[in-house]
């Protein structure tokens, strides 16, 4: 199902929580809304689910309007599955009854068949008679997923679905759920504040801040081609350096001219802030340019060095782990910038 949200705005008691949000999720795509807490991302989800009526805007599925000023299809008729942060499993029902909860239109035999099928898909067929309180967090999450996909929804909405799980389980379950969604060809929209979760899970990501959509893009583009300073800061790590646009249009910083593709439109002779990602700064023993190690964070396969240039400006550099340098040591660096991210001052 293709989901289109256009010019969505919403206020609670005179406080505007959403401003003019528009995006489209293609059929079968997995999308994610990413933003700090209180940014309004959950409100978008609730508007799509139909629990909230927005003050303005249109939401349509496959070009059929489900929310507008005059139309409000109730949640029960939207054929949308919902997974909550707390899973909201019904504590008085067994696993299979929970999964069968949305299958009230099916006959008894169809119901049992369907329940069995989805429980097998999520790997819980052995626990069908158990009750929610007897399950681990990961198992509860799987039941919530099974219950949501059982009625064959065209869209699944997930509100911080992994935040109650520990990190290793989070990654594994994320991948598994992604495969299940792709298998059933279900469109999905997830809300999270964790960018690693979003990167691992989603085909496309919308970054939200203060109720406004900052950028809707792939993970790669959010990292390497951020549209604005907020996205540049919020996604990944990096350092801003003073730069100046030369008369040839090239951006100059204290480490020299940058050759990469310039994304923003810049006027010659403008002063700019240039974003250097840790992977833009390469450690090279042969390089004539050196920088001093100020701080190092060991991460296993690699080390994230914080380096001070001669001027005192700091940059980050991601270096394979076997280049182990002491704090205070000067090491050679060179730049490898494919995309020049520069914002006018």
């Amino acid at each position: 199902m293709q989901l289109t949200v256009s010019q969505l705005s919403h206020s609670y008691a005179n406080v505007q929580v959403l401003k003019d949000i528009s995006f489209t999720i293609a059929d079968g795509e997995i999308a994610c809304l990413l933003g700090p807490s209180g940014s309004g991302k959950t409100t978008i989800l609730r508007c799509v689910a139909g629990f909230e009526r927005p003050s303005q805007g249109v939401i349509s599925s496959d070009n059929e309007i489900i929310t507008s000023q005059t139309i409000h299809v109730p949640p029960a008729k939207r054929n949308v599955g919902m997974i909550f942060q707390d899973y909201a499993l019904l504590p008085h029902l067994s696993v299979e009854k929970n999964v069968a909860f949305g299958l009230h239109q099916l006959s008894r035999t169809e119901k049992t068949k369907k329940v069995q099928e989805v429980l097998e898909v999520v790997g819980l067929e052995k626990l069908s008679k158990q009750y929610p309180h007897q399950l681990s967090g990961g198992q509860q999450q799987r039941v919530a997923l099974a219950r949501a996909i059982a009625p064959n929804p065209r869209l699944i909405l997930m509100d911080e679905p992994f935040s109650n799980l520990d990190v290793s389980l989070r990654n594994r379950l994320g991948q598994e759920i992604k495969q299940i969604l792709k298998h059933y060809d279900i469109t999905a929209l997830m809300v999270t504040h964790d960018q690693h979760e979003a990167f691992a899970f989603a085909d496309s990501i919308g970054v939200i801040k203060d109720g406004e959509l900052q950028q809707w893009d792939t993970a790669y583009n959010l990292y390497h081609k951020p549209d604005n300073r907020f996205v540049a800061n919020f996604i990944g790590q990096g350092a801003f350096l003073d730069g100046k646009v030369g008369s040839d249009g090239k951006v100059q910083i204290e480490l020299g001219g940058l050759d990469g593709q310039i994304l923003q439109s810049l006027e010659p002779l403008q002063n700019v802030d240039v974003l250097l990602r840790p992977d833009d700064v390469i450690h090279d023993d042969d390089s004539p340019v050196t920088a001093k190690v100020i701080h190092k964070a060991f991460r296993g396969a690699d080390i994230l060095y914080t380096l001070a240039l001669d001027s005192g400006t700091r940059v980050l550099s991601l270096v394979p782990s076997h280049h182990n340098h002491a704090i205070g040591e000067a090491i050679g660096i060179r730049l490898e910038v494919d995309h020049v991210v520069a914002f006018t001052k």
Partner: protein
Amino acid sequence: MQAQMTLSSKKTSRISRSFLNWRLVVLGLLCLVMLLPVFTVFQQALLAPSDLNAHLNEYVLPRVLFNTIVLVVSVTLLSTILGLAAAWCVSMYEFPGRRFFSWALLLPLAIPGYVMAFVMLGVFDFAGPVQNFLRNVFGSSAWFPNIRSGLGAVLALSLCLYPYVYLITRGAFAQQGKRALEVAQSLGHSPRRAIFSLALPLARPWIMAGMLLVMMETLADFGTVAIFNFDTFTTAIYHTWFGMGSLPSALRLAAWLMLFVIVVLLIESRGRQQRYTSMGDALSNSRESLSKPKSFLCTGFCGILFGFAFLIPIVQLLIWFIEHIELAFSSRYLEFFSNTLLLASLGSVLIALLAVVVIALQHALRTRNKEKQISFLSKLLSRLMTMGYAVPGTVLAIGLFVPLVWLSKFLVTMFGVSQLLLAGGLFALLLGYTIRFFAVAFRPVDSQMQRLSSHFEEVSESLGVVGIKKWQQVILPLLRPGILTALALVFVDIMKEMPLTLMTRPFGWDTLAVQIFELTSEGEWSMAAVPAIAIVLVGLLPVYLLNNQREKTLKS
């Protein structure tokens, strides 16, 4: 796909429309019915001419006013001291038997005041075992205070009501923990000074809440004072109405009593707003171990309190019960018993059902309407509905009698139904129970409802389970613990209820409580033990629930 057209009218017209909302109207009507007795009492007291005004003003009112005030003040003070001291001991100190007393000191909640009263009379009266023993030892000149007086009533009521103060302040002390005392001591207060400079002031709102509960119960008490022949408003209302046959004078007395109740209610609603937040972790509360003599003092105090408030009465009841065990199986008693069970089950089911309906209405109003006024209004209405618990049974009986007589007369003339007597029937009794005990059922169900995550409902709606089905399959099962608590509490309260049942019951519908009233008015203490044992046994159920609840909250 079904699309719903919405009302795109202006905001103002939406509000005026929603005030005509049928749910709000139903809530409003229910509320009116619940408050009907209070309205009636005041309206009649102010407007109806009283035939016995002079007699009332000269003889009854001054004595009753004085007695009621003395009773309320002394019972409140004594039960506060007892409850507070017991709560302090079990939450602050470690002493032999502490774990046992911690829950056992709640047990007297199961003994209604009137049972405590006749047991006390039986044990301590002139002909009782204690005075007999004293006379045998010291001769016939041995002095003993006259127990059949205000003193006896104060003692009996205090022993029954201190658990309210105990329960509430024990919770407060547990929440406060030792942290408060440690802070005070680190700032240079001696441990003893810290109690008065910090711990007690911090617990003050809870102590107040307990005291107000005791006041309310004392004002409403009928059975205890009746047994001690100590005339207060409740017994005066009964005697004036049933003895002297003067309904208008009884109504005036009822209005006086309601004034007292309203004052207590007003103080209570003010006190509700000033509870402090807790200091530190409740579980970090470690108890001080005491020196031998001091811990002996604690054990002794708790032991004596437990002995007088529970052990002695129970033992005495059991002795009497065994003496008259053949009574328990007589057909008369089986009838009292089945009457009581029938009334209590009918009433508790009815009242719990009403509580669920009111909560459903309120919930629908809150979720369907965005306007603040609507949800405020529905909240106010349901809060008013819970006020019925404050109306003493005697006031309720008389306040329902008047409008029901009027209603049955109206129905008789309108529809020509003959012999339709709503006022003295099962209908009136159940209505009275509903008004008095609605709050008892409402609170546990409501608190369960408020703890439910809205996600349950949203999941249910997103899976296409809506409306009545959503209530059947999701909300009601989740509310079950609250509903069961409501059923149990109301059941026991109806079983214990005396004045309303006594004054409103249909002819021939004697219950256990009514039987106790009749036997004790004839001085048959030992025979009254038979119905009393049944009431006390069933009354242990809510005490068990209270203790269970506390352990659950401590664990979670």
